[in-house]
């Protein structure tokens, strides 16, 4: 199949995208939400037309709470982020933000202490590492009967390489989103990454499964076939399924993004990027890498 034939091009595109993602993370940096840094997030709305942003900004400034940010949210509200406030400070903010007749409603008030934020960061990192680790061995186990020409542990390692690709790309995308639209990395972002991992591994396994089946059937029928050709054949047999499933998943995510609630908008977007990246990596990276590995190392 052409994917195997032009594998260097597809691998090249993957590497370029990866480099672009890493570059944007390095260049733009990531903005962490209070979930990770600790602090207070106020989501407020007004009964009448909301006061101007400058107005709200100057009110909060009066309280001298240190650095803070105010951004518009929805049609009648704002989201204000400050350091973690205690109850008295919160009451003071509520009082200040009411403009006579125009009563402020505190739709959502979240305060997270710094220790809790730190812990979440560690947990997120640990969860990602733990999942990758478990997956290597799971895949190696599932494909244990396939030891020729490429040992099964390499299937596991390639799945994890594909995984890295699949989470670095949405993260890079989010760095750009953060720079231009103020998107912040929060708990839901980590959830999205873990869900992408689940999706992407599933996708790669289906492709690998086909390779496994074709190898087995070749052995059974005593057919000698180049590994490259087997992989190409397997890809041809699975790419429609991969693409169709990512289309239906993308449809669901697009509906969630355009019609769903504001809180899950970024979540849908990250997942969407991840699903596309995941599909690309299982078809155009994982299988070609397997062929490359066989050509360079397991020639015998």
């Amino acid at each position, binding site marked *: 199949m052409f994917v195997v034939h032009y594998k260097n091009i597809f691998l090249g595109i993957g590497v370029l995208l990866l480099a672009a993602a890493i570059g944007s993370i390095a260049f733009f940096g990531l903005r962490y939400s209070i979930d990770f840094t600790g602090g207070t997030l106020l989501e407020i709305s007004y009964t009448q037309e909301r006061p101007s942003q400058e107005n709200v900004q100057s009110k909060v400034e009066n309280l001298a709470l240190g650095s803070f940010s105010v951004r518009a949210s929805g049609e009648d509200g704002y989201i204000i982020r400050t350091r973690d406030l205690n109850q008295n400070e919160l009451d003071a903010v509520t009082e200040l933000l009411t403009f006579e007749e125009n009563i402020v409603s505190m739709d959502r008030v979240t305060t997270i202490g710094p220790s809790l934020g730190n812990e979440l960061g560690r947990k997120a990192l640990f969860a990602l590492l733990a999942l990758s680790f478990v997956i290597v061995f799971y895949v190696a186990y599932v494909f244990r009967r396939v030891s020729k020409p490429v040992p099964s542990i390499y299937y596991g390692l390639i799945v994890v390489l594909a995984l890295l690709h699949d989470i670095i790309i949405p993260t890079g995308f989010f760095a750009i989103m953060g720079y231009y639209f103020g998107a912040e990395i929060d708990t839901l972002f980590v959830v999205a990454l*873990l869900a992408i991992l689940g999706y992407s591994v599933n996708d790669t396994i289906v492709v690998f499964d086909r390779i496994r*089946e074709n190898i087995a059937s070749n052995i059974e029928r005593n057919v000698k076939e180049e590994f490259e050709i087997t992989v190409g054949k397997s890809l041809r047999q699975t790419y429609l399924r991969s693409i169709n499933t990512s289309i239906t998943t993308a449809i669901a995510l697009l509906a969630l993004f355009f019609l769903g609630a504001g809180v899950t908008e970024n979540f849908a977007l990250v997942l969407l990027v991840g699903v596309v990246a995941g599909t690309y990596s299982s078809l155009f990276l994982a299988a070609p890498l397997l062929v490359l590995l066989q050509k360079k190392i397991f020639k015998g």
Partner: protein
Amino acid sequence: MITKIFGVVVVTAGILLSGFVYISEKNGGPFPLAFGLDLAGGTHLIYNADTAALDERERKESLIALREVIERRTNLFGVAEPLVQIEESSFVAETREDRLIVELPGVTNLSEAVRIIGETPLLDFRVEDSTAALDAAEEDRYVSVGLTGRFINSAELTFAGGGHSGGLSNDPVVLVNFNTEGSDLFEQITRDNVGKQIAIVLDGAVISAPVVREAIAGGTASISGGFTPEEARDLVRDLNFGALPVPIELISTQAIGPSLGKAILEEGAIAGAFGLMLIIIFMVVWYRLPGVVASLSLIFYIALMLLMMKLIPITLTAAGIAGLILSLGMAVDANVLIFERMKEELISGKGVKDSVKDGFTRAWLPIRDGNISSLIAAIILFWFGTSIIEGFALVFALGVLLSMFSAITITRVLLLAVAPKEVGKMSRALFGSGIKL
């Protein structure tokens, strides 16, 4: 014939199931969906419980007592279905911390919620510390001996008038009755410290520090020390609700108004319905008759998901809704795998029925292996879990299992029911999208 009967049974079951889910969600129906705080509105509080000074046994007992006290308190203030949990910080945290998690549905005023919990008194009896510096602050001149509010049975208010002090003073006195364990402890402490001061510390401040004259048996201590009658009355009330066994500190709060959650729910429902419709259109256009079957199976899957969420029950959160909508897209995956496989069998020249059967058999392995990896992800997500994530992980895991189930049972039964015996022009058009037979 038998396959047709199965098909009818499955469709009927699907209709009944959907009907039940719909009726049970109407006003007052049985098994309503449970909504999380972010959808229903309410307050979520996380406290740090300071157990550093306690040994393992005391720590466990204190935490249980803490949970009970706070639960009683939230109940007394009329909060419906409060959730009070003790949780240990995860092992990746810098230091081990014990946490108290309080969820108060319907309480959307944060300061009110904090007040309900915050007024729980912290009572501690401490003895004189002979090693303390003379100029140390009053609180620092005494050391804890483990006699805390945990051991209090009840409290009552009396007035030290007339007889006792001989004067006309009418000072309020709070009598504290210890439980058996507390009585023994109190007796022992007083016996060991005759001639010394014992400080009664309420919420960190020394209220009084009488000198012990003799061992006190009977398990009653009296606290006096410049209360107003009102203060004394409140203290008695609060002590009767229960006193904190260990100090707690608020480290995280979240209060969600009711309007926000309602919007999330409505928008989620619209997004879900729209997504479902588009997926069905895609499946029918691409796969024709099998696409129709997959769509029926997908609707069956949704009804099954909602049913399980009602029965288990799984609390629905904003993240859970997102997970549910995401799962719509992923749920057809098993169907897609099977259909693609079926097409190959058709191409190889098999009859429609055989192709359906073999398609299922051959697609099973990748479906199983792939879905197990998704389940592993769900388990790790669940472990990672703050309450937001747990909601998502549960929906995700349930979605994986039920979509697998609906593909290999419902899709299969329905496909066999509609599959024609002979490969004719009609069946080619209905089954073989994109292939030449």
